[in-house]
């Protein structure tokens, strides 16, 4: 190539790059699936900032409260979002939460297993349930909606029946004493950054109890898990080969299979993901409450799906983001707690939840049209 040709070539490419940057910044932002959820979260915070700004909702204690609720929902919402991007649903998440809870509590209390063994047992059961869900959907080709709806009833029923059979009750208390000195339980039961809160308390920057210790003692474990799950899921979706396979499996199953994506394996692993996330949720709750309850997690699957949808996941698969689901969960958590700080009757929460979802679906539908329609 002559020098002249080279310079023309380089000019051409640099010219392209400039144009690329100009066009794409705004468009990139508009086309991101999490745009709606981030915008919604900002609106929610502005709303409560105005309505409940002076009520203590945004004090350290108040904030940790709504963050804790958001985080718990977020953990399952992120897994649900990844599964939805992969083109499937899991309606058994809520039942899995109840099931995982008693998988920890019954061995630990009635069979004398060490707590950590019980926790590992619960996770092993989650992998089994997820695998079973996945293999059923992949092998039969039935809609996952139906398969996991069946699992919703089976798991909830089994949880209730087994618990009553072994304990004669529907609740298993007495776990709190087992947490101390357990090699694993701390991961699900310990507040972090306590030193920071103690320091903030000593500087009189946050509210104190009468004995001088801060009211908010540290970041709850749910929030740490939530942050870790968001980062991990985003890394997988955006930066790994497996992430590309998730989008491909949900976007066009046949096409993905034709170019060599192991669609079945991808889907099964995502079902395992939702069951494991439900078990993380259950472990945190069981250790926090010190007891397991057979009805735990009831309807959580729908909240998780709602958060994922608000976060930009399409019901048809192939599109969405973990960050979006995280913000979706933050919106629900903030509103469900924030509503206590306002004069609004808390009965209205579900109305809000439904309306939010409707708006999100309409918005996301518009975005999808923008993304897919020809120029």
């Amino acid at each position, binding site marked *: 190539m002559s020098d002249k040709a080279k310079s023309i070539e380089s000019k051409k490419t640099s010219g*392209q790059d400039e*144009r*690329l940057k100009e*066009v*794409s910044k705004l468009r*990139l932002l508009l*086309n991101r699936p999490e745009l709606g959820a981030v915008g919604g979260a900002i609106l929610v915070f502005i709303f409560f900032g105005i309505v409940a700004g002076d009520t203590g909702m945004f004090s350290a204690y108040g904030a940790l409260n709504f963050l804790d609720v958001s985080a718990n929902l977020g953990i399952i919402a992120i897994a649900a979002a990844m599964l939805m991007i992969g083109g499937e649903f899991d309606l058994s998440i809520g039942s899995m939460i109840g099931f995982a809870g008693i998988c920890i509590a019954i061995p630990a209390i009635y069979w004398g297993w060490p707590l950590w063994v019980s926790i590992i047992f619960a996770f092993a059961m989650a992998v089994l349930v997820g695998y079973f869900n996945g293999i059923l959907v992949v092998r039969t080709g039935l809609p996952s909606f139906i398969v996991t709806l069946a699992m919703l009833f089976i798991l909830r029923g089994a949880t209730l029946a087994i618990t009553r059979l072994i304990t004669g009750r529907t609740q298993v208390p007495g776990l709190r004493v087992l947490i101390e000195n357990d090699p694993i339980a701390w991961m699900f039961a310990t507040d972090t950054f306590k030193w920071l809160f103690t320091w903030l308390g000593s500087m009189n920057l946050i509210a104190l109890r009468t004995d001088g210790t801060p009211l908010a003692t540290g970041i709850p474990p749910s929030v740490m898990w939530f942050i870790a799950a968001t980062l991990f899921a985003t890394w997988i979706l955006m*930066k*790994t*080969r497996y*992430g*590309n*396979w998730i*989008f*491909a499996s949900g*976007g*066009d199953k*046949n*096409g*993905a299979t*034709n*170019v*060599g*994506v192991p669609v079945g394996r991808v889907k099964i692993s995502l079902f395992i993901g939702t069951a494991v996330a439900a078990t993380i949720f259950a472990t945190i709750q069981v250790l926090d409450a010190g007891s397991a309850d057979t009805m735990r997690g009831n309807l959580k699957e729908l909240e998780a799906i709602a958060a994922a949808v608000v976060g930009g996941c*399409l019901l048809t698969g*192939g*599109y969405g983001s973990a960050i979006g689901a995280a913000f979706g969960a933050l919106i629900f958590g903030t509103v469900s707690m924030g509503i206590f700080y306002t004069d609004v009757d808390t009965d209205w929460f579900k109305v809000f939840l439904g309306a939010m979802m409707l708006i999100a679906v309409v918005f996301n539908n518009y975005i*999808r049209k923008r*993304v*897919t*329609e*020809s*120029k």
Partner: protein
Amino acid sequence: MSENLIEFNNISKFFGKVIALKDVTMKLKKGEIMCLLGDNGAGKSTLIKTLAGVHKPDEGEIVIEGEKTVFDSPKDALDMGIGTVYQDLALVPLMSVTRNFFMGREPLKGPPFLKTFDIEKANQIAAERMGQIGIDVRDPSQAVGTMSGGERQCLAISRAIYFGAKVLVLDEPTSALGVHQASMVLKYVVKAASQGLAVILITHNVHHAYPVGNSFTVLNRGKSLGTFSKKDISREELLGMMAGGEELDKLEVELEEMNRINN
């Protein structure tokens, strides 16, 4: 270049009692474009799937570069350099150009067990490849859904070539396209062939096939009516050979009849 790149010798395929293909023979050289013509139900899809390794032929043999070959799976066919572009293109509209281009075969970087999708490299290759075929993707992270039908077809073909296709099998690449888009795709097919690929172009549109094909194989009800080189056959003769050719003639006669009565 007398050596054939790929040969199909007396291929037959049966589904129970149904004879889908019977004694089909085709030979292709490097740089040759063979058009496989036939009406619906002539056995085109079965033949493609046999080429792509989805079906195993019940009789006959596939010879690639002089060696007899049996495909046990679509992956085998891919590994032997047979790149099939299906009608649905195996593209996901919601995913970016790059993510589609490398779907299932993502380039990786980083240490073992922590390998990540090398998206910068992938973007660069995808943009470069699309540039080569004259499609200016300003931004390879734009969704495929924003591309035109012809551009999508070219992307799928370009992907097959990039991943080592020596024989390109194109299933109805122009059937869903307008004139302009179709000619863009056909131009690219000719270019690919001139670079040494053998192309099998499956179509029922003689008008698209005739200008670009070097030879023509006509399928009718599972049997090959023969392979003809371009100098031996005219467009009209080809049309006539395809099932439906006679029907078109009949239609013409009937229309004339109607005109006469109306006048």
